[in-house]
């Protein structure tokens, strides 16, 4: 605690760098994943190509990717851009899957109703598909947020500034306090980002709160998980959000 108070400025600077390195890829990843998912929905073949490709990229360990990227991008190894690009790749890999699930979760009847009402494809996408897919999309985003925040610390091994530096320097100096402060700071950062996303989701999807009581009544009766079954893909989102809520408590 004393060490933290004495070094709080440094910790806050590192936390700021950490946050930028984690959040920027998330936004970039979302901007890439949504059109990609929309393209992938056009046909079964495209869908499996996109899903296989994204899982293949996701298989590459982050530390290796941090080192391989500079060669491809022509950047220097200490350039934070490598971390941003690497994490964007992971974010896209995860979010394409989530976006596909999210668009699948939109009721086909609603889509057809929108078409019948005269919505043009783009307007329908922006006004119908996108908002209605938000709950599942946010479930994916929350996973990406936690994973990014944890992954950024690995970049400290290569000397790129973030909270992970507290681990490397703690190890070198045989100083446990610094490592513990680092872990706690990262956990707080992850919880903070998760709370921000939950809040954002609530603001963007006010209609889900009205219908929630009916949805949550089901799992109580009979077997808990078979209750989720009825809600289809949203069951996973529900499971995760409950997991998060319990974790935060």
């Amino acid at each position, binding site marked *: 605690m004393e060490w933290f108070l004495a070094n709080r400025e440094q910790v806050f600077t590192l936390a700021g760098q950490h946050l930028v390195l984690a959040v920027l890829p998330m936004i970039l990843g979302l901007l890439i994943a949504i059109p990609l998912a929309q393209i992938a929905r056009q046909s079964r073949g495209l869908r499996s190509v996109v899903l296989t490709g994204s899982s293949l990229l996701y298989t590459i*360990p982050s530390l*290796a990717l941090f*080192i391989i990227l500079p060669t491809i991008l*022509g950047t220097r190894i200490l350039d934070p851009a490598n971390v941003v690009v690497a994490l964007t790749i992971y974010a896209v890999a995860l979010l394409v899957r989530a976006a596909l699930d999210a668009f699948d979760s939109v009721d086909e009847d609603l889509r057809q109703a929108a078409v019948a009402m005269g919505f043009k494809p783009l307007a329908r996408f922006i006004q119908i598909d996108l908002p209605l897919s938000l709950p599942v999309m946010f479930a994916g985003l929350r996973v990406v947020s936690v994973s990014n925040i944890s992954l950024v*610390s690995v970049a400290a091994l290569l000397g790129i500034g973030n909270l992970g530096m507290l681990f490397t320097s703690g190890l070198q100096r045989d100083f446990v306090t610094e490592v513990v402060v680092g872990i706690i700071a990262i956990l707080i950062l992850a919880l903070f980002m998760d709370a921000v996303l939950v809040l954002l989701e609530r603001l963007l999807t006010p209609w889900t709160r009205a219908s929630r009581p009916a949805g949550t009544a089901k799992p109580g009766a009979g077997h808990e998980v078979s209750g*989720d079954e009825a809600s289809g893909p949203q069951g996973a989102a529900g499971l995760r959000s409950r997991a998060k809520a319990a974790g935060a408590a």
Partner: protein
Amino acid sequence: MSNVVTDTFAWLADPENWSGTSGIPVRIIEHLAYTGLVMLIAMAIAIPVGLYVGHTGRGRVAVVALAGALRALPTLGLLTLFVLLAGIGLMPPIWALVILTIPPLLAGTYAGISSVDRNVVDAARAMGMTEWQVLFRAEFPNSLPVMYGGFRTGVLQVIATVSVVAYINLGGLGRYLFDGLVLSDFPQMLGGSLLIAALAIAVDLVLALIQRLFLSRGASAQSNRSQQAAVDLTDSVYTETAVQGGTS
């Protein structure tokens, strides 16, 4: 840039790097051995607990919460903490890795058992099976596809994370990255990275092949239930992301 690439290939092709105690084959074996050890310990803990929670439904909230909280723990922080507290050696980092591997395994096992059609379980019970028989002859076989998804995720996560343990004086392919970093030997770093990526992809392909050959496609079922299974699978797929790389 091109000379880095050619240097890297020269490094990869150099027979000297393929022999001796720090040669590439030895490093690959070390890497896989650490992975195997971590998986064995983690499975010994996570699978029984997952089976219990999946079968009885007891402690479900606790398990899901625990898995969620563990997901946010930074790998590197846990590794350095264990080393500082328990000293350098094989086991401290192994235990840190075990802790990080339990969530996907636990989630996979638990989700697998939960995804089994309730009618199947009820039918098994109605036929007079004991609880153990229900678990091992009805629930377990039917949940294998989902459980295997968790296993695959866990293995890839460990392979990715094992590259980090080289930072604390263990072997494995990660050695090339950190040795290269100290010596500013970029071809060695890049070569090591390519080997790690290749190893992860190769292992994933082998695991996918095993799934195709040995796990019944029928067990993952069609209709409504398969949707639930798929949902749980993506859920466990998401679970592993706390650490780096590795998805089916």
